[in-house]
């Protein structure tokens, strides 16, 4: 026993350990407990001290944290899925079949899909909680707006991912969804006012030049759509959502941490 304890202790006080974990050792004193947060790039996301209701689940529901955690799960499982999935109309569907049939831990797809649905729900509930505690009130108005954008991006991420299995469920959900873009006023080929954007015989907003086209890369759902949604899903939207997440977290801290009664 003593031998073992000594070993751990020696390890925790050794050069390697202390070089990685600044301070080293198990934090016990108040100062150490503060330093362990301050010194870690990850834990540094948190403040050092908090009002006590901030650790009460009854108050926070932990929905913000879970949303972020789900984002991490989705990022990791998504990256793993990318190793087996090819975004072409020839292969997309069969690759999904293979995830279920032969890929080791093809359950990754389930984790990704249900994680995505769960994230939509946790983000909604997070917003609900923030509203119910009135946490959008000054000085947190802007961060609420950022949060709304994050909610929108979450939905868009889920929406773009919905197409990728390239099955009937996917393309018809996206067809229904993207057909609405066709009705955008002035910018959609079947939107009000689009017919007015014309000079002479030339119509400027057509099926091949409206917003829906930019979204799906064609007049009809097809190869280009799959590729566009794939790129948006894997690179474009994650890139944007990470920027907004950074702002969101930064502003939580700068706006005074978790909201408290005045």
């Amino acid at each position, binding site marked *: 026993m003593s031998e073992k304890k000594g070993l751990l202790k020696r390890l925790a006080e050794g050069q390697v350990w202390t070089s990685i974990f600044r301070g080293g050792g198990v934090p016990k004193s108040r100062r150490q407990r503060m330093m362990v947060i301050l010194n870690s790039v990850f834990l540094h996301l948190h403040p050092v001290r908090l009002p006590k209701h901030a650790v009460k689940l009854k108050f926070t529901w932990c929905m913000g944290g879970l949303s972020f955690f789900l984002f991490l799960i989705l990022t990791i499982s998504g990256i793993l899925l990318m190793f087996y999935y090819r975004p072409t109309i020839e292969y997309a569907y069969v690759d999904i079949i293979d995830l279920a049939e032969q890929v080791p831990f093809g359950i990754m797809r389930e984790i990704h899909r249900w994680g995505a649905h769960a994230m939509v729900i946790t983000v909604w509930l997070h917003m609900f909680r923030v509203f119910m505690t009135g946490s959008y009130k000054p000085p947190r108005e802007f961060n609420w707006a950022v949060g709304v954008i994050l909610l929108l991006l979450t939905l868009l991420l889920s929406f773009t991912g919905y197409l990728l299995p390239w099955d009937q469920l996917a393309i018809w959900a996206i067809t229904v969804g993207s057909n609405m873009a066709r009705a955008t006023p002035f910018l959609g080929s079947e939107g009000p006012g689009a017919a007015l954007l*014309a*000079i*002479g*015989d*030339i*119509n*400027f*907003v*057509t099926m*091949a*030049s409206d917003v829906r086209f930019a979204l799906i890369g064609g007049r009809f759902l097809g190869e280009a759509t799959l590729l566009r949604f794939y790129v948006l899903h894997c690179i474009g939207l994650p890139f944007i959502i990470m920027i907004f997440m950074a702002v969101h977290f930064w502003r939580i801290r700068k706006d005074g941490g978790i909201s408290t009664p005045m």
Partner: protein
Amino acid sequence: MTNQQERYYNILKLNKWFAISSLLFAFIWLLTFANDFNRPWKKYQIEFRELEIEKTRADIKVASESLESNEDYSALKSKLEVAKNEVESNQEEIDSFQEKVQVLEAELYAINQNYQFAKADLDVAKYNFEQAQHGHGDLESATKTLNNLMVLTGARKLKAEIIKGKVEEANNGLKTLRQSLKEANDAISAIARDKNLLDRKLVKIDPEEMTFSNKIANVVRDIPVLDFIDPYYEVKQVVIKDIEDDMVFMGVPKVDRCMTCHMGIDKKGFEDAPQPYTTHPNIDLYLGASSPHPMNEYGCTGCHAGRGRGTDFISSAHSPDNDEMANRWEKELGWHPLHHWETPMLPMKYVEASCLKCHSGSIPSKAAPKLDLGMTIVEKGGCFGCHQIDGFENVPRPGPGLRKIKSKINKDFAYKWIYEPRSFRENSWMPHFFKQINNDDPISVKRTDQEVHAIVSYLFDKSKSFKMDRLPNQGDADNGRLLINSIGCLGCHNIEGDERGASLSVNVLRREHGPELIKLGSKTTQRWIYNWIRDPQKYSSETKMPNMRLSKQEAADISAYLISQNDVEFEQNTVPTVDENELNMIASDLLSSTLRQDEVEARLNGMGLDEKLDYVGGKLIRQYGCFSCHNIDGFEDAKPIGTPLSTEGSKLIAKLDFGYFHDEIPHTKWDWFNLKIDNPRIFDMIPQEDDSYKIKIKSPLDKLRMPHFGMNNQEREATVTVMMGLVKDEIPPSKLPSKTERYLAIETGEILIMQYNCKGCHSIDGDGDAIQPTIASWLSEIADKTTAEDKSLVLSFSPPMLDTEGRKIQPNWLFKFFNNPTMIRPNLQVRMPSFEMISDKEWNSLIKYFQLKDGQTIPYETPHTIVKNSTKYKAGEVIQEMGACDNCHFYGNQKPKQAALTWGPNLALVKERLRSEWLIEWYRDPQAIMPGTKMPAPYIPWEEPIDDVKESWGKNVAKLHSNPEKLIEALRDYTWGISGPTDVSRIVKAHLASEGYGFVIEEDDWGDEDW
């Protein structure tokens, strides 16, 4: 003083720099947009648009001029004016009608809507009723609702229909009032339709004709950034899903953008426009929407090759036809070959290569004459003997069998011939192996002298003996010459040593099917020739030479003629003596490939001179691949020695060794092939600055050994065309000619026809009859020059044309004829030979070919029957009598009345030989079936007054008089009934011997009084 503001730079300066850098940045952005906007193809589209505008204007001018001069048009115009006035005068009435219609339609709208709604409710009620019957819901109330709604719907429908009737009535009133105006308008627009279409087109493309807003749109649509919406100038392309570009181990659907610049390619009317706007020269065969290769389904690069996705002159991999063109392109277009693309565009001279991809079974010779020629050269030259080429598996070896060579020639001739065949026979297909660029130095010559000795020795040693009959007599050489000229030898052989002429064609090559028959006196003996032509199969069972059924005397005469010429110069060539030392060296080279040096010496010491010669000869025959073209004992199963060529056109260019010639010729496959064929050993050489060559260091056995065929430029081009067409592209069945029974039959038939050179004598669908010029010259000899210039006469002495053979001949007769040819046209000297080597299966294929080609799908038919005492038959008798058919035709053994010159087939043959339907066709218009035939259309008196007919043609003809078709049938039936012996050859022979052809007859043969 401290810097209170903690500043370093002057902010004004920074502002300035900020402004400058931003301006620069903005300017660079402008450049970026300009760069993207400026695409190489745009200038061509702009230019083509001008061309199109110009053309449309010209067309409009023509159209309106023709309209102006059209009387109907001006008449219609004034009619329109009248109609307009009329309608105007009725305006009040029209207005009242219109008002009425408006009111009624409003009413109808409401009532109709009510009806529709009731009907919708009724549908729901029906559904609910069904559901209730199924146990969901209250049946009673559902039934009640349903019944109520049925009544309601019915009532509303009735009401709506009444109003509808009223509306129609009013509308009809309106229509009547406006009828004349509408008619005039319709008539005018019908007559001016073409011009209106042109007008509309011009308004779309010509800014000068556009409305103001369209003028603006015309500019706006093509400005940078906005040019995605509906640009006038845009990349055009066709995507062909099932033709794929080879992307190494996989295919990618073909995308061709050629029409982005070649904008006129599929539009008629730009035939004379400059490139790249020219219309395709053969738009009915290619690109046209109704052609067999429409642009949308076949694209461009499937045939032309190149990089279809290219939108720039260079990136689309254009290839020039020649150096002059290359230089011009470099100067004018900055052209350079596109590297890193394996399939550059085929130069126009090789473009027919691509036909082979899909049409390898049956080359469309009219559309691809060069490819056809190339395929013939490959077959005649025997390329497929050394190089495996798909599709040639069953073609027999092109050279004569050498198994009984001893009896045919002597060793001296063999030596000289092998050494240099063309020194004896200028256009021989036997290629040169010796005295080539890589073996004509003294050391090599010393060696090759002995090599040939060894080969000859081997061949003669292995040769079996051939038991020959004696000549009956010396033969008459003069008669022999006439026989050769007349019986058909010249369908496959040349005899005069003619030049081929400037332009080579497949037809010329048909007469090189067999060897040229000159100077045989230097080659063989009369006795051998006599025995050979009497029965070729006896000498060589593999020969393609048919049996001409020559009599002993004929054969003697012919052999006398053939032997009469010799080549003194050739005979004087000396044959070097056998040199055992040199032989030893060759033998040891050959042996050392498998044995140690000491073993080699031991083996050599154990061999005598003859043994050595045989050993070396055998090895060299293998080395040079002689067995590829000749049947030689001991090489029955030898494998081809050359590179397989089945996919040579798809070979990576890196796999072709340009050696030291990479700067001498363009770096293309076709130029490499061309040089290789022109000078097969050249890649053993190192070119020098003074145009001489030095040879690479190579052992004699490692040297390049492909022989030299002495092809001229045209032959090489044709051969390279074939090679470029031997590609591994996978063509989907949808793009191939559909493999119907007919297609397959024609494919098989054409191969046989080529193999046995049928078209050397016969013409089929306008191709063949290679023998005809020699028939003409023979005629000029036995008659006179004017006779020889009479095309129809030459035709009547030529082998028959086989255009409608399938419809014409009864298959059983044809099969019998093939196996045992008999006389049909008595005046012919040309004989159908006996092809003893053709199997029953092949004959069947040929018969099927003729039948299916003519749409004759069933081989067995109910025979045509006649009733001899019928009106028809009797009428036919009169018609044949009046037509004097017996002037030219045999009736059994009854000789025709006129001279032999005009004789036609024995009519006793008709019943068993011809098909009755065809005979009708033939009687109706012989010229339609066989243009230029001497056979006149029988006179049928159907246009004459009935009384006259009755008087001069009798009652039977008069009965059928009104129906010319029946009269023709009558003649047919009579002919059908003619019987008698069918073989009249003895009578003919006797007649010709005593009276000749009677060429002197100059007057009209047919006697005016009968017609």
